[in-house]
């Protein structure tokens, strides 16, 4: 028995399409539920892991607004129904895997039947984030719990606080207004790849696996350099990496974008051991072992 990924959905913002972080999250969550054959009422837990949204809202949790927008049991408690619990997780580009870890615990305990993990980022607003570096995008993952061996089979997280200055996102007062500034050191990707590989090696060891057992690596497309150097550090052939377009990087939704690509290309169909790995500010790495199908 394990937590299974029932559906993945990705929504890209563009020039003509909406660029609100919240609306991208709404659209991704709704599309993902639809793909999973579920409705808002089926959602027991909704976790938002996106960071940059409209006006840099501080409270409530953006997840509560998304819950309202997708009509997931938003009403006052009443007999015969059940509610939805919503909150946000912030863990940089490792947010989605952190959200999956949290959902996995509640699914494992039988507390919930379905969880939606959503992530989106977009420029928070006019003149609020000059040089905002990320492409507007939203993504969602719907999870459930199923009998049988397929599903999420373990997690590992690790941080290197010594490298915490390599990626920073700060909202501070400058030129008469509060502005978001995202600072990324040129060395960030170089430092992230070996650290990601080290955490992933620990995860594989937990399951008595070696790099040769990994059929597919799904990584958040931090930068092109990160994706280029990761296979060598992991000891996994390059053709087992899912490559996502990194011309304009997608931030917290990045892991789901890569997972969606693998899903669409049919690369999950025959994979036994999939390594999900993210690296982000901290320097923090999150890794999970996913078994879409077990022979």
């Amino acid at each position, binding site marked *: 028995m394990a937590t299974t990924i029932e559906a993945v959905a990705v929504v890209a913002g563009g020039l003509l399409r909406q660029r609100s972080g919240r609306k991208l999250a709404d659209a991704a969550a709704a599309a993902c539920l639809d793909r999973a054959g579920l409705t808002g009422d089926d959602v*027991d*837990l909704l976790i938002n892991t996106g*960071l940059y949204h409209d006006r*840099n*809202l*501080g*409270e*409530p*949790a953006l997840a*509560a*607004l998304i*819950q*309202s927008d997708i009509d*997931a*049991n*938003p*009403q*006052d*408690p*009443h007999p015969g*129904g*059940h*509610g*939805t*619990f*919503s*909150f*946000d*997780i*912030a863990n*940089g580009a490792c*947010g989605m895997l*952190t959200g999956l870890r949290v959902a996995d*615990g*509640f699914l*494992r*305990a*039988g*507390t*919930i039947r379905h969880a939606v993990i959503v992530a989106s980022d977009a420029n928070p607003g006019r003149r609020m984030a000059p040089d905002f570096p990320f492409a507007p995008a939203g993504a969602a993952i719907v999870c459930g719990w199923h009998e049988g061996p397929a599903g999420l089979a373990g997690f590992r*997280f*690790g*941080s290197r*606080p010594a490298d*915490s200055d390599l*990626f*920073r*996102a*700060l*909202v*501070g*007062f400058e030129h008469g*207004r*509060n502005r*978001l500034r*995202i600072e990324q050191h040129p060395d960030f990707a170089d430092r992230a790849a070996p650290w990601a590989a080290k955490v992933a090696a620990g995860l594989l060891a937990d399951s008595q696996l070696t790099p040769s057992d990994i059929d597919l690596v799904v990584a958040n497309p931090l930068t092109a350099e990160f994706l280029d150097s990761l296979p060598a550090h992991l000891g996994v052939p390059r053709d087992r990496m899912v490559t996502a377009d990194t011309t304009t990087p997608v931030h917290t939704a990045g892991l789901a974008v890569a997972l969606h690509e693998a899903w669409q290309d049919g690369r999950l169909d025959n994979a036994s051991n999939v390594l999900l790995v993210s690296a982000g*500010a*901290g*320097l*923090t790495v999150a890794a999970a072992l996913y078994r879409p199908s077990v022979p």
Partner: protein
Amino acid sequence: MTAWLMMERSPDGDRAPFVARVGSVGRRLPETRLPTDELMASTRHRTGVDLERLTGVQERRVSLGDEDSLTLAAGAALDCLARSHNRAEALDVVVGCSITKYRDGLVQWLEPPTSLAVAHAIGASNAMTFDLSNACAGMLTGVFVVNNWIRQGAIRRGLVVSGEYISQLAHNAARHVRTILSRELASLTLGDAGAAVLIERAPEGAPGISVAGFTTVADHSRLCLAYPARHERGARMFTRARAIHEAAIADTPTLFQEVLDASGLAIDEVDHVIPHQTSVRAIRKGMSEVGDALGGAPRNPAVVTVDRYGNTASTTHVVALAEELDAARLRAGDRVALVALASGLEIGVVLFTVDDELVGNRGNDD
């Protein structure tokens, strides 16, 4: 049993072989006291509002820039660890739950997460870290997550921590509030505090955390919104206080009853209720409504600290828990209900039993 709340209760057999307990609590309060009359004397407009009479808030602690979200959180975390038998290196997870994430003055750090900086500051070198945001229900949501992981044996112990440098919202509000109808009135009750609670696996047979249940009534999600200010330092918060109070009063009794049903208790078997601290009047009215609906009352009046500390956002329950332990008002065996009520609209209850160790590790030295 169909419950509206997303809820876990102990014991629950194979799917959760362990029970979690509240191991220790810590807090850090800034030294400076800001009396309500002094704050109200600083308003730009003649408001005619008697805030102290309206809310019961006499004073709050404020940072004068000497503390920020990180120093308050780290200070509380060290206080919590000093009262625990656990060392920082033994923590499996550190969850940061504050709304404010100010460091180096009024700079809000969105990445890396505050939890990582706290873990680094206290020496929790082996801990997984992440931040969790759920308005004023943040810390109790963190307890809910850590409780779940401990119950399954995924981890042994975790630290849930928050530092709220949020009094600057009151200073911003003081420039804008004109009348009692202002949506920034609630901002004037805010105070600064850091809080930390260590949750760990309980010895076999110990009652620990017996029920934790939460829900989000998202039809009311837009009743309290906070943003970075457009042209001022820090942030502003806009609250439709009456509407949020009415929704809370309408929804809380049903949900509290679900927690009691899950634990097999009647309301008069709960010794202490620590509600979120918004105003003395709101707490008394809310508890009275819960009592009427549930046909009884907890054994003691609801804990009130808002008169001394104001509304310290996500830290209120743990600040109050430390206060009650320090004052020796909690005894081993007492059942305590922590009741979250937050923008979202988030409603949650954590029900736990105080044990000897928790009573013993906070002396009267705070």
